[in-house]
Every structure is written in structure tokens, then in C-alpha cells.
């Protein structure tokens, strides 16, 4: 009776039992070809066209919704006293939170020398950019007539001689978000320059060579250039780290500085940052799983990545859970009846269902299952979990905005909140815009940083002592 031959999975490192970051057998050329081929082919895949059509349709919905908003004013939304911050602020906080994972991956994990980040950092950064585009739109359009709102947001000399009020968190927010957007674009572009050089040299079409040639700024891979480039990347990573922690902190000040029960707490900054990273990693997983499948990138984005991202989600999810717990504890311990009522109303009031959804999606389901290695390494389970956490985090912002506002101090001013179709249309529309931009990115730019993947291959090690020593290295690898 023959025993069944067990074929070892090449992606698993037999020595440690861990999944490898990159499957073995790759050379500098195969990596370059596999990644650049996705962009340089003249045939656009059918699934790309399909998704693009749907996403483009939704983006058009956004255009219609925003046009109608500008014609009619913010009255088309559900915002009214006492809930003056509705979907616009919920969506703003949610989208910008998603962006945080991209910066975390590109900056903080670079400083911690987490090599596995290299495969996913480019598209995570692109996700950041497009999420910030969607996020940044909301504070602008929720002013109703943004062309009249510039003078009190940006300090510029105007004919009225009026200047912004710098003691307001709203003005801090403008500085934080514009800095975040600019630095994210810069970091992403600097990272792209060497790869754009590769695209310029590998493109067969005139337009491609011209466009990539201009964008690559004439990059030629000189050793001196690389050293300055590495220094600049490290500096940008070091600068983005305090930046990413400060952005959601400043956004939480928009809430925490107001003297409203449910907002006026000191736990908001860390709890907002952790929540942002939690939802951001969920979004990276939501995007990475279909991409690796559709573009056959399983040996560059391995289960190691999915597993590690699951661990980050678990850690940040636990911080978020601590934040929820502390909010409840402080509502009781503060002995403030307004705080206590707010929490009671949040849990059992007419909007109590939203708090239930939040606990279910952010705590109960993910934080029980992510402990299991089997679940973290199951692509299907992680995809579903990432969608659950994304919705849960949206509900967290809904709970913070709506259930704090709709019943504050004076019962005579209580009200309720029910989103209109234009609220939903705008939110869905940003989904369309995000997906459209992301699809254009994966069609025209290399979504995995080729130069960084080359650096991770075993061949990139410098061996002293001539060809014999090199032969030895090859044998050990």
C-alpha cells in the first residue's frame, strides 16, 4: 500500500513553518516582468472593464448628488437641529481613517524594518490617496457653498481683511488634512520614480515611453542617487509616522473640544487613531484579496501578508474595544448625569440598534475570530471579516456623531436623524469615485514596488570572495 506523497507547499518555509513573504524561484527579471506586464499589456482584462463600468456609474451618481447639493443647499440632506453633523462628517472621518493604514504600512512598518510590507505598500498608499480624496471632499461640500467658505478655512489675504481663527479645531483640521494629503502624494510619487524608470524602459508604445519618461524625471539608478533616495525615503517615513498619528488626533479634537456629552473625552485621540488603523487594515485586506486573485499575484502577496494584517487588526481592534469600555466606565465613574444619560440613551434609546451593530461588527465577531491562525490564513474568512469591520467602523462614527447630538442637555431641543436619499447617493458616489481612481491606478501604474521587491530577493545579497562564494550562497538558498 503506497502512502500518499505529501508535496510541501513552496510558499511555506520548511525550516520555520512560516509562510514566506515571496515565493521562491523569483529572479530580478521575473519580478520585473510579472509586475510590469499587468500595466504594459495592451489588453484590458474583462473584469477590469466590468468593475470600471459599475464604479464609473456610481461616480456619476456622486456628480449628480453634488450638483444638486450646490443648486439646492444642504437642506437636501437630513441635517437639521439638533443633528447638524450627519453623513458628511461620518463619511469624512470614516474615509480618512481608512487612509491611515496606507501611511502606517509605508512609514511605520518601514521604520520597524517589516519587510513583508514591501509587496503591499504601493497600493496601500494609493488607497490612502484616494480615500483622502473622498474624505477631503466632505468637509468642503458640507459647507453647502464651498466657494464662500475658503476665507475662514485658509489664511490668505482677502479683500475683507478677515483671517481664520486659529484657536479652533476646525482650522487645525484644515492644516492637518491638507498636510496629510500633500505628504501622502509626495511619499507615493517619490516611491514611484524608480519604477516609472523601469516602465519607461520596458514600454513598447510611444505614448507609454513618453509619459513614463516624463514622470520618471530621467531616473537612471545611479548609486549616488539611490543613497540620497534612501535617505529621503527614511526621512519621509520618519515624518509620516508622527503625521499619521496626529491627523486623526486633530480630527478627534473636532469632537473632543466641544462640550457635548459623548464627545468631550480625553480618550478620543488614541481611540480615533487605533480605530483608523483598524478600519484601514480591513480596507487593505478588502482590496488585496481580490487583486492577488484576479492578477495572479499569490506569490508576491502571500498568506503571510494576510495573516500579519489580521494580527494588526486584532491589536488595534483590542485598543478600540478598550476605548469603548472606557467610554462606558467614565460615563458611570464621572458621576455626571449628562454623561450617564448619553450612554444609557446610546445603548437603549431609539437609536440603540446602531450601538448594537457597532459592538457586533467591531468587537464580537472580529475580536473573537482573529485569534485563530486558521481564520487569519483563510482568504475567504478574512475577506468577510474585513467587510464586517469596515461596516462596523462606519457605524462607530455614526454612533459618535448622531447618538451624541440628537439628545443633549435640553429635552425640549431633542430630535432625531433619518438620512435622505441624497445622503446615501453621496456616500455611494464616493465609493464609485474611490473604486474608479483605484482601477485607473492598477491599470496605469505598477501596483507593487518592483525595486523594493528586488531588494528582498536572496540574489541581492553582496557576497565577498568571488564566484566560488557566490556558488555556495546559491546552494544554501
Amino acid at each position, binding site marked *: 500500500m503506497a502512502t500518499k506523497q505529501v508535496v510541501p507547499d513552496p510558499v511555506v518555509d520548511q525550516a520555520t513553518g512560516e509562510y514566506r513573504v515571496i515565493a521562491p524561484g523569483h529572479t530580478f527579471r521575473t519580478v520585473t516582468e510579472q509586475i510590469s506586464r499587468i500595466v504594459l499589456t495592451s489588453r484590458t482584462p474583462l473584469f477590469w472593464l466590468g468593475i470600471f463600468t459599475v464604479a464609473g456609474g456610481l461616480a456619476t451618481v456622486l456628480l449628480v448628488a453634488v450638483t444638486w447639493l450646490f443648486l439646492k443647499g444642504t437642506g437636501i440632506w437630513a441635517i437639521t437641529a439638533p443633528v447638524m453633523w450627519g453623513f458628511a462628517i461620518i463619511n469624512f472621518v470614516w474615509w480618512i481613517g481608512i487612509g491611515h493604514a496606507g501611511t502606517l504600512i509605508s512609514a511605520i512598518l518601514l521604520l520597524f524594518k517589516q519587510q513583508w510590507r514591501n509587496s503591499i505598500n504601493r497600493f496601500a498608499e494609493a488607497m490612502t490617496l484616494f480615500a483622502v480624496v473622498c474624505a477631503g471632499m466632505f468637509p468642503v461640500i458640507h459647507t453647502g457653498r464651498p466657494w464662500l467658505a475658503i476665507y475662514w478655512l485658509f489664511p490668505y489675504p482677502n479683500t475683507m481683511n478677515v483671517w481664520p481663527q*486659529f484657536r479652533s479645531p476646525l482650522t487645525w483640521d484644515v492644516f*492637518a488634512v491638507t498636510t496629510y494629503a500633500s505628504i501622502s502624494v509626495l511619499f507615493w510619487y517619490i516611491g514611484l520614480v524608480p519604477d516609472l524608470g523601469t516602465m519607461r*524602459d520596458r514600454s513598447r508604445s510611444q505614448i507609454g515611453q513618453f509619459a513614463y519618461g516624463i514622470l520618471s524625471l*530621467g531616473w537612471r539608478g545611479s*548609486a549616488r542617487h*539611490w543613497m*540620497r533616495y534612501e535617505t529621503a525615503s527614511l526621512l519621509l517615513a520618519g515624518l509620516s509616522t508622527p*503625521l499619521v498619528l496626529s491627523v486623526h488626533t486633530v480630527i478627534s479634537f473636532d469632537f473632543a473640544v466641544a462640550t457635548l456629552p459623548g464627545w468631550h473625552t480625553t480618550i478620543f485621540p488614541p481611540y480615533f487613531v487605533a480605530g483608523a488603523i483598524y478600519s484601514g487594515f480591513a480596507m487593505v485586506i478588502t482590496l488585496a484579496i481580490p487583486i492577488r486573485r484576479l492578477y495572479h499575484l499569490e506569490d508576491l502577496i502571500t498568506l503571510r501578508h494576510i495573516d500579519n494584517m489580521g494580527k494588526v487588526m486584532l491589536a488595534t481592534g483590542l485598543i478600540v474595544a478598550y476605548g469603548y469600555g472606557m467610554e462606558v466606565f467614565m460615563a458611570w465613574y464621572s458621576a455626571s448625569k449628562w454623561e450617564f444619560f448619553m450612554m444609557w440613551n446610546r445603548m437603549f434609546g431609539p437609536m440603540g440598534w446602531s450601538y448594537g451593530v457597532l459592538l457586533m461588527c467591531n468587537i464580537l465577531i472580529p475580536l473573537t475570530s482573529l485569534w485563530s491562525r486558521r481564520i487569519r490564513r483563510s482568504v475567504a474568512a478574512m475577506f468577510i471579516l474585513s467587510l464586517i469591520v469596515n461596516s462596523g467602523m462606519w457605524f462607530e462614527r455614526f454612533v459618535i456623531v448622531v447618538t451624541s447630538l440628537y439628545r443633549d442637555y435640553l429635552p425640549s431641543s431633542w430630535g432625531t436623524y433619518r438620512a435622505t436619499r441624497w445622503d446615501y447617493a453621496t456616500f455611494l458616489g464616493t465609493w464609485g469615485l474611490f473604486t474608479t481612481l483605484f482601477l485607473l491606478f492598477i491599470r496605469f501604474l505598477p501596483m507593487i514596488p518592483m*525595486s523594493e521587491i528586488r531588494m528582498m530577493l536572496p*540574489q541581492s545579497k553582496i557576497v565577498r570572495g568571488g564566484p566560488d562564494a557566490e556558488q555556495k550562497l546559491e546552494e544554501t538558498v
Partner: protein
Amino acid sequence: MPIREGIYGLLAEFNTPSELVAAAEEAYASGYRRMDCYTPYPVEEAAEAIGFHRNRVSLVCLIGGLLGFFAAFGLQVWVSVLAYPLNIAGRPFYSWPAFLIPAYEWTILFSGFSAGIGMLALNGLPKMYHPVFNAPNFRNGATSDKFFLCLEADDPKFSIGDSRAFLERFDPVSVVEVDY
């Protein structure tokens, strides 16, 4: 700009980074100074080998950061104390703790842009034309999987015959003359 004629240098192509670093170290040891390595990803040892140890990107970044901090802080003080003083709940006009937050953001903004744009400027980029692109094998390899060492013709030690013989010793894939 004067029209340059003649050759820019000799370009040797290698298959592995180790061969490149060995050749570059040897070239530096035998007195070549004007040379450069071209690699598809950062090879720190290659820059060390040609005697490039320090760069000034960090300094540019620091200057930018300080400038950003003082620009934002100064702007806020000027606006809030001199140009448009507003009484906000009785707080002092010079409420510096609040001003630190935008100043913090602009420190990062300015230092980030100084690091990024400063790096490109120190590298002399954008520069669409460079003689090494004239080498027939350069664009196929330098940005994907080959490693190049270029000995430049304006080095005092450079001479076509000797330098070529020198490079041939390292068993490169090819040695080609690069024209201007």
C-alpha cells in the same frame, strides 16, 4: 552650453551586484574617482565602493522643517495678535498652545517637501537626457536586472585602452563605449 564630443565613459555590465561591487572597489583602489554605478535597486555597498559616504538630504530636511515651524507659528501670531485679533471666550490673543498644532503640521509639511524635492535637486533630477542612456544595453538592464559600472572619461586616470583592459579583468558581460 558647449557641445560635448567624444566619449563620456566606458560602461561595464555585470549580472550580479557582488561582481559590480568587487569591480567598483578595485577601481576606486586603483585611483579612479570619476565613476558611477547603476543598479536596479539601492545597493549601499556600491555607493560605498565609489567613495560616496554622506549626503546632505537630512540637512536640507532639517532646514525645511525649521522654516515650516516658524512660518506657521509666525503667521498665526501675526494674524491673531496684530492683523485680526479676536476675543474668543476671553482667551489671550497670544494663545500659543493652540498655535502649536498647525505649526506642528507645517513642520512636517515643509520638512517632507524639502526632503523629497531636495533629494531630486541634489540628484540633478529631472534630467531627461544623460549620456548613459546612449549605451545600447543600458535601458534593457539598468532598471530591471543588470548592474553597471561606468568609468568616466574626464577622470585623469582614464584612457580608452587601459581602462577597457582594466574592466575586462572582472569578466563583465560587456564593456561598451558611451558617447555624448
